[in-house]
């Protein structure tokens, strides 16, 4: 701000429209929030998004396998040129929304993958793909994870997210793999599914009654 500029707090106002201005910015924040939620839901189903009113730690008594990664702040800023406002440049809306969403989406992605990475590393559940065939790395990864069965005993296979080009490389490798490898992989998947169903049956048995 130039030295001779009038401080905002003391500046005269001319038809302030305070309430309307606040409402418009609130609406824009909600719009950005919805877009960010939509981005998050590419990775998480909406029923897995949780909302808490107060601070403090998260605890999961009776569920020792749940990991608490703590609270992270996400924030984004965007500005508008006074001239663009005066020019009534409606493109400003799209630019600001894109800027805010870009920042928030990037932070969300970093947080999510960072959390998964931390959790995996904390228990040594990491596979190094370097120096081995992609299909072998995939097999090792599957060996290390524990899949879960739904209450109807269908299997919840984990969602796979890979970087640019990695998916194509893995697909090509899998297609070109030997029959023996494919059979070995299927056997592993069946074994994993069977273990999952066994665990789910044991879990359901802990209820006083399950199903009709």
């Amino acid at each position: 701000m130039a030295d001779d500029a009038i401080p905002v707090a003391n500046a005269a106002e001319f038809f302030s429209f305070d309430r309307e201005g606040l409402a418009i910015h609130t609406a824009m924040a909600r719009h950005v929030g919805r877009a960010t939620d939509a981005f998050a839901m590419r990775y998480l189903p909406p029923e897995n998004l949780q909302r808490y009113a107060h601070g403090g730690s998260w605890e999961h008594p009776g569920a020792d396998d749940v990991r608490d990664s703590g609270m992270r702040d996400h924030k984004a800023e965007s500005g508008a040129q006074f001239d663009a406002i005066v020019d009534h440049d409606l493109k400003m809306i799209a630019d600001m929304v894109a800027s805010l969403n870009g920042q928030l989406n990037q932070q969300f992605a970093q947080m999510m993958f960072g959390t998964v990475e931390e959790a995996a590393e904390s228990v040594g559940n990491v596979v190094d793909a370097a120096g081995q065939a992609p299909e072998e790395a995939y097999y090792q990864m599957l060996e290390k994870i524990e899949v879960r069965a739904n209450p109807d005993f269908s299997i919840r296979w984990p969602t796979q997210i890979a970087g640019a080009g990695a998916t194509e490389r893995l697909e090509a490798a899998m297609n070109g793999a030997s029959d023996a490898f494919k059979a070995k992989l299927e056997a592993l998947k069946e074994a994993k599914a069977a273990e999952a169903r066994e665990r789910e049956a044991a879990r359901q048995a802990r209820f006083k009654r399950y199903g009709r």
Partner: protein
Amino acid sequence: MRILLAIGCNKYDHESPLEVAESDAERVFKALLRPEIGDYDAAHSELLLSPTLDEIRGALKRVLFDASPIDTFTFFFAGHGAVESGSFYMLPKDSPSRGLSMGALSLADLFRAIGEAAPQQSNIFIDACEANGLIADLGVLLKSDLIGDADTPGVTLVATAAQDQSAEETDDGGLGATALLDVIEGRDVINDTAPAFDLVEIGRRVSTRLRAESNQTPVVWGFNLHGPPRFCRNIRAGDDPSRPLRDVLQVWPDEPQEGAQARFEDLWRVYSTISDDWRPRRFARVVDAILASLAATPGAQAAVVERLAAACFERARLSPDVFRPAQVGSALLVCLLPYSSIDQIARQAEALCEQIGDAVLAAGAALVSALDADRYALLSKRHSGVADLFLLPLRIANVLGWTGAATGLFPPGDPREGEAMALFAKLLDRVIEHYSTSVVAVGDGQAAPFAVALAQAAHLGLTEQADALAGLLFVDLIKHRAHVARDDILPEAIFDFLQGRASGDYTTVQEWVSRPDAMTGVVLLAGARLGLHEVFDPDLWRLDEHIFTTYVPEDYGRFGDQLITGGRNLNWTIGGSFFDIAELDGLASPRLTSPSNPLTMAAAVLAALTYPDRVPWFLLAAPSAGPPPSP
């Protein structure tokens, strides 16, 4: 200096004459000039009998501007009043039949004069027909150039006749003036402990009496936050009856109350909305700021809250919602929570608890009568229909929660405790009799009130009713797979949420579904308290994988904060954390820590009823739960 201007007008050029207005003014004038009662300055105070408008204006000029700086100014008027174009006028002898703005004393004019003279405290007592027009005038008076001026720290107004009502007269004088004199002369006792009274305290007493004894609905508003109560002395207090009021006032702690004064305009603004547009957080923000500015002087904090309570309870009585006084009192009490470890504050908080308890008793009794006369009395008066599919269940939770809380607001052994228990039992019966199909879990806004109601029903041994309540809620949770609305759902989103509830498809209202919710925790823990294992456990699988949360604060002194920092968000997954309600109870109860004393406990319960995004989980913990396990 203490100045009194008393006006009584029997004779009118264009209105019907009155019989006792002059004698009322004389009686009040004489009483308030007595050193042991009002101690007003005899040399500068004035009594006007059937004056003209010019005589009133002249007297106002003399008493307000010709004397030394005024500490307390009291204005009494008995005579005809009238409302014209939204303004209230006091009619002098020569008032015209038309054109009151030119020929009568408007309340706005009186306030302008007071604002300019700026006494520390101004008291206005009007005993006139159509005095209820003063309510309409409040909007005008709230303009900053009238009473919001920081140089006018306190204005209190009592008006003892309502619009379309004539100020009633008896052989002894007007009912309003007689009720006022009975209090200030000690025939009607408010208490025998306070050395002096504000007009608000007296006004509340007069108001209660006139409501009971006549068809009057008096108006009391305003407050004095600056210095001691200074309208008149409490003649029934135990000290020397001949001691002048000015001596009594000198013993008032000379504590700085600039904090209250600086926020006077904000306070007036929220005060004026208590009876219609009640928003507890907005109210609390102003009170919190005042109390924070007085943190170094607990005596001043306690005094400010006492005054605010007197004024705000009375203002809340103007609301058609009979629970409003209890809600306002609770918001005020919760503001005291952070300071409740200080003895002076704790005493004030305990007194406030009793007043809130009284307010709940009055509201609950009114509700029982209404339900006995009309089983649909709990439905919305203006927007029933679809809206009540959501609001009625919420209302049911609230009436049970608030009346359930009342028993904990009185000292042990107080007869009102038994009254509160009986009232709660009656209401529980009425709800189950008339509204069992609306005992459903629609939103997390019900979690705190149902936690209170279920815990209280269990505590009082109302087993059958408590089982019915918990059972109905459990069945509804299962029916809707525990889809309850967030406590802060926008009113505009409720219709869509109800459609989701009807169809089972919540796709369009995902953001308003509470995840994790609190209602499920309330119902399951209540089931454990009530021993409903055989009822709940066989069907618990139907909520498999549902997650709910129980937030427990680190310090209950901050349980009224908008955002509570610290504490523990305890998350529970059905079929993950536990598989039957005994297992949940065993894991949860030791973690649901309780406030350290009964006062904090009562205030925490009221905080949860006032701000529905928190739940007093300790009410649902097993009594024998041991020390909390480490996180």
